[in-house]
């Protein structure tokens, strides 16, 4: 198999990893909605932690993207 084809296939496989981030972000916001539903007054504090959690989970998706880019262009 030639290198260019292998690179493209490798990049495509590497991006499958963002599935985990999709599940993670959905999970974080589902907890946020439930928490606010049970206790609307806690919205401010919980929102801050939700944003922190979202950024950390999104970072995982971006690690997968960076590996894909390194495979494709490195």
């Amino acid at each position, binding site marked *: 198999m030639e290198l260019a084809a292998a690179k493209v296939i490798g990049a495509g496989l590497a991006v499958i990893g963002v599935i985990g981030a999709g599940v993670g972000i959905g999970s974080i916001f589902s907890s946020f909605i439930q928490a606010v539903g049970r206790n609307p007054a806690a919205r401010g504090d919980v929102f801050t932690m939700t944003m922190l959690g979202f*950024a*950390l989970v999104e970072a995982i998706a971006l690690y997968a993207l*960076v590996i894909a880019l390194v495979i494709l262009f490195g």
Partner: protein
Amino acid sequence: MAEAGAHSPLAQFKIEPIVPLHIGHTDVSFTNSSAVMVIAVLAASSLLIVGMRQKALVPGRLQSVAEMFYEFIANLLSDTVGHEGKKYFPIVFSIFIFVLLGNLIGMVPYSFTFTSHIIVTFALALAIFTGVTVLAIFKHGIHFATFFVPPGVPIFLWPLLIPIEIISYLSRPISLAVRLFANMLAGHTLLQVFAGFVGLLGVAGFLPLAFVIALSGLEFLIAFLQAYVFAILTCLYINDALHLH
């Protein structure tokens, strides 16, 4: 991605020297990246210096903005680190403002995002990591090694858990750097790719245009969010260093 041709979406990240300088064989040119960093530092300094010049008890508009930034980071420090966090305020504030302005100046069209380069974010992350580790070692001495032993774990699990803990500790600067770098790189590349479609599709070009507008809004949010995450993780690492566990 648009490839090997004249308009790769990655071309926007190219570093161009503005004032070429060489010390021996080392290239220390003043580049577009350095120019934007200087602009960011000047903007932050002037906001704070000019904003606080009045020192009014009831703040005017600019002073309110400066005080908002101060209070935001001061609260962040006291929430995460507690009372001893006060003395680390300058470094956390500088990091936060630098990353925030770096991200935001990059949103200006035809400007340059210096936080989209791994070397810049890695330099910041490595500096923070080194500082935090040195702080922990100076404060706790040899007792710092107990940081890698999770509390309440039976001894026979230690050979498994301690290497895992050490590796996850060493991965902190890498994750800190890659998180910011990848967010900025992916955001700007995506913007450029879809902006390219606007011209290519002719009449139907309003669809990618609407997407670019929505994505720009998201990118502003991400700019703030990534700066906030960088700052709060710095505070959490300082907290880990000061109070092991």
